[in-house]
């Protein structure tokens, strides 16, 4: 059973949950089984937030087992070391410093830019990711987030590790 495990992490208010909503919806649009899990509540008050997204032919537990994430997408510098143990050996870390702040069309789009970078690795059609993004965000934010997504894809492409 091949399941792709993604953990998204950051601080409350950064758009971690929005990013995991988009990723999970993209997997749904690609016809896969998908589960997504995080804890709401206290965590929304500026504290650490992680969200697990798992997709594949059949997904059982909604939680990514610790140390078994294939991809770790982190939106806040402060959360990189805290969440690194979630990644499996050889897993891919996409940290916020991958995206140069100055190049972002809008600071709030870091989540979508990192999804763009992640999309280079995933066996999901980028168009499904973009459709999911458009479904999740109001229309006035579509253009800026499309640019952020493309920017993330380009940055990831410049990295030698891309499959």
């Amino acid at each position, binding site marked *: *059973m091949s399941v792709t495990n993604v953990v998204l992490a950051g601080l409350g208010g950064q758009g971690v949950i929005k990013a995991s909503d988009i990723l999970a*919806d993209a997997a749904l649009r690609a016809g896969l089984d998908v589960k*997504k*899990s995080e804890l*709401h509540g*206290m965590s929304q008050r500026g504290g650490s937030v992680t969200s697990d997204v798992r997709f594949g032919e059949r997904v*059982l*537990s*909604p939680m990514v087992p610790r140390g078994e994430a294939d991809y770790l997408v982190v939106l806040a510098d402060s959360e990189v070391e805290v969440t690194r143990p*979630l990644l499996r050996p050889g897993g891919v870390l996409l940290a916020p410093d991958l995206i140069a702040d100055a190049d972002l069309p809008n600071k709030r789009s870091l989540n979508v830019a990192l999804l763009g970078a992640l999309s280079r690795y995933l066996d999901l059609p980028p168009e499904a990711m973009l459709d999911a993004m458009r479904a999740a965000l109001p229309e006035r934010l579509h253009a800026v987030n499309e640019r952020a997504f493309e920017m993330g894809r380009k940055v990831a492409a410049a990295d030698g590790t891309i499959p």
Partner: protein
Amino acid sequence: MDRQLLSGDEAVALAALHAGVALGTGYPGTPSTEILEAFDALGGRAQWAPNEKVALEVGLGAAFGNARVLVTMKHVGLNVAADPLFTAAYTGVSGALIVVTADDPGMASSQNEQDNRRYAIAAGLPMIEPSDSQEAYDLFFTAIEMSERWKLPVLYRMTTRVCHSKSVVTPAARGDAAPEAARKPAPHFEHDINARVMIPANARPAHRRLRAKLVEIAAWGEECALNRVEPGSGSAADLGIVTSGVSYLHAAEAAPGAAILKIGLVNPLPLEKARAFAAAHARTVVIEEGDPVIADSLRAAGVAVESRPDIYRFGELDVPRVRRILAGDASPEPAAPLGKPPELCPACPYHAVYATLQKHDCIVAGDIGCYTLGVLPPYRAMDTCVAMGASIGVGLGLRHVLPPEEARRVVSIIGDSTFVHSGISGLVEMAYNPPPTGHVVIVLDNGTTAMTGQQEHPGTGRRLDHGPTARLSIEGVASAIGIESVTVIDPYADPDGFESLLLERLAAPELSVIVARRPCVLAAADIRKWEQQAAEFRARAPEQVAYDLPVDQDLPMGDQ
């Protein structure tokens, strides 16, 4: 119907809609809050009650009237609703009454991790437990069928992971839902005094009726589709796992090939099915979160199953923990990564309140809400937090026994929604049995139930769908109860004024309520929008407004 990615909460709401539920009511509480919000968004009739007890009573009345009803709450909410719950098991219902209890193992956002499967046993009510969103949808219809067949409330137990995880739901999986809604009974009333008036003469036979129903349900449960055996395969097939809820998914992943008895009806348990299952496997292990409810029940019935080491009753289970349980590993577990703790929002109007309480070394009886975060650095300005509304009683108790110089520093602090939920009777106690040094209650009125995601409550003057309704005046209630000094102040706009007011009230041996009023920074823009919509509605169609809506001039709506 199409595949949809839904949370367990959303799946319950969709099922309720498809089942023709006439009314959804509850009190917001993580992780259950989104059920009624989703039900409303889908077009269902949903409303917030002031607390869970009232919600259950409204739901019970609607079910006496032959309707299908959904009542939602978090686990500790069922403590508040327990009084009507236990006797509703005796009265039974005419329509269908589904009570969602959303437990929070691991306490992501709760003050305890009580296991509400105990309530099903204690009250003598059937309890269904789904594992994911598809089951949260599908099993809801079974709950309705059971409630109507046995004329009993049915407890629907969810947990944080089931409520908040999103997974794929195909509503068509259980056939076309529309005919189900069409089968719903028409609300009407039939007198049934013996069944519903629980004087002892009626309650004694009612208890016997309840126990007879449970015997029937237990027999039905042995064969019903809620409890199913998944045969094992390969080398792991000697291992049997008995499990329920989200633990089923962890177990299926942790032990591929093991045989599984998946329990969907957690009360009454299918003891004979479990007995046969255990007898067929060399080793049978119960995998359950929280209390060892299934394990203890099976072992009491003489079924040979293993439970888990006691360390696994704390917190949630996950795949690694289930692997450890199956390996018999009770060694200390790796610590979870320590992230950044939550904090009061930078623009929260309560900073000045907590800074003042800290500065003057107050003894603070606190309450449940995001303002509980005042306990964290930098303020550490809260000394107790136990239950909804407890701040007032606990503060009074301290005032009664502490030496006067200490008693005069005791303050109770409570949010607006919490005050309406169960603070009002605390104020009644305060007026009835005033401590010699008096007492000071601060109501933090930010105009919303902020902690759970900005839900309305009677004090906001807006319904669940944010439309206008009567507004409960907190200061009016306090005055009517007989509190001597009641003052409204904006601690954000006037922190110095708040400090001098508090000091004056602490020094005076009288009863005092300070309403610290300023909208939640996260909700302020929405509150403005809803108030404007309400004003437009009233201007456009005055004849549709049943009564004059009080306009609260004190509620500041300024930009933040």
